């Protein structure tokens, strides 16, 4: 159940909850004046905290590592299709609004739209 490589340009190492060594897939694209940052959960390949549980902590570490301003970023979490027989591992994208309350924090996105953005300047 490996995450296919087309979901990421690089493996980003980050400190998860309690500084646990953790990894995620990462793609960054510039589009209409914003940086689209897509972090992908790696499941078995991630030894530590999930991207969703890490949340803002991961976003801050990406900003720091890549020299991005937080406000210039559209932050998207990707649950990738792992070609598993189990439907739990189908592809989903969520834009995360870290300033919103829990009910409004995650906005599901159309995968085709995300892929269209990711194909810019690829």
């Amino acid at each position, binding site marked *: 159940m490996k995450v296919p490589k087309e979901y990421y340009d690089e493996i980003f190492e980050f400190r998860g909850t309690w500084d646990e060594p953790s990894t995620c897939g990462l793609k960054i694209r510039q589009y209409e004046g914003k940086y689209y940052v897509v972090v992908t959960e790696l499941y078995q390949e991630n030894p530590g905290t999930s991207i*969703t549980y890490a949340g803002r902590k991961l976003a801050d570490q990406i900003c720091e590592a890549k020299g991005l301003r937080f406000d210039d970023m559209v932050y998207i979490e990707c649950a990738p299709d792992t070609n598993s027989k189990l439907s739990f591992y189908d592809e989903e994208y*969520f834009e995360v609004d870290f300033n919103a309350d829990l009910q409004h924090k995650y906005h599901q996105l159309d995968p085709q739209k995300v892929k269209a953005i990711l194909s810019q300047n690829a």
Partner: protein
Amino acid sequence: MKLIYPKWKKLPGQTTFNLPPHGPVAFAGTLPDYVDVSFTDENVEPIDFNEECDIVALSMMLSTQVKRGWEIAAEYHKRGKLVMAGGISSMLHAEEMVNHVDSLFLGESEGRMDGVMQDFVRGELKKVYNYMGQMPPIESVGPCRRDLYKRELYNHKGVQMVDLFHASRGCRFSCYPCAVSYLGGRKFRPRPIDKVVEDMAAIENNRLFIVDNSLAQNKEWEKELFRAIAPLKKKWISHTIEDDEEVLQLAYEAGAWYVYQAVYDTSDYIKERVKRYHDHGIGVEGTILLGLDNQTEDDCKRLIDFLGEIDLDLAEFTVLTPFPHTKIYDDLLRQGRIFDFDWNHYNAGQVVFQPKHMTPEQLQNVYDYAWQSFYKNETQEQKMFNLFCNVALREMNEGTYRPRDRKLMNQSFGHQVDRSKRNVNV
């Protein structure tokens, strides 16, 4: 040290068997010799908050224990005692836990407690001991402090409950609703066979529950393990065993009593899987998870009705529960479907999320229907008794049977038995 295993509210309508908890005595086994330990499992006896101690340690496994743990910590704080916490649910709920205790231990404690205790003695106990992801060598896992158990409290009508035992840690699987890979690592870490045999042989109990997440992780190790423990003539319960003729036969010869086997669909494969266990003399307790996104109410009921066709010895039903640090938690959180974050409700019997194809009430009703339907002709305690008879016969044939303790025939987990009632709820 006062070591406490907090109580939790048991699920209504189900027979409660209190097993001697494994986490606290595994932890106690890692303490240096100069630490005197007094242990209380609050599920079977009340805590004496005035008992003399220098430090309190809370060991917690379930999400439903954490809030009670915080209450206990507050009670000891009133008495000026320092409280530390560890164990599975301390790790899963660490961000909240750290606000309620003086010191939080994250990770596995082998080889680390001398340092912690030295800090305590110097008055320099750290707020957090963070060993997440840093697994100690598996060879360093030693025997549990089973001498801390008050054995008579884990006895039902003269029958001693099984002792919990672990032959490995970690899990190479990362199943959708499970947090084990987060807690114990995604690498299967089998204990050296000679240490397993040595520890198992030292347990004053003929019946065990090997609590490893799945024994079906490394076939060669599994076979070696079964061959090595067979001479001990213990009888044991476990989770899944490899679906392989040779392995199943070796498991039976090693004392496999019954296994927990997930029943997730109505396929012939499941039917055959259960049959293969039975063909090898191994009983099966089906574990049925209700409320998955691919299940409608009708699907659940079909699955429940299917259980009647596959001759399960026991069944345990749970509703999908998004425990922190699981994939299901992330998925349901992002989808805005978790409506209840009261950890006391995370008992796998109460719906805390919005199911995809049912209302929460419908899922709750399906769950209740499942228990009632499966046990309508024979109660859980009666079915358990049948399994008990199977193992007792095997033990009699092998000359290892230990008769019931007649002094405790009228007691159940430390309480007097009301023999007019069939079910026992403690």
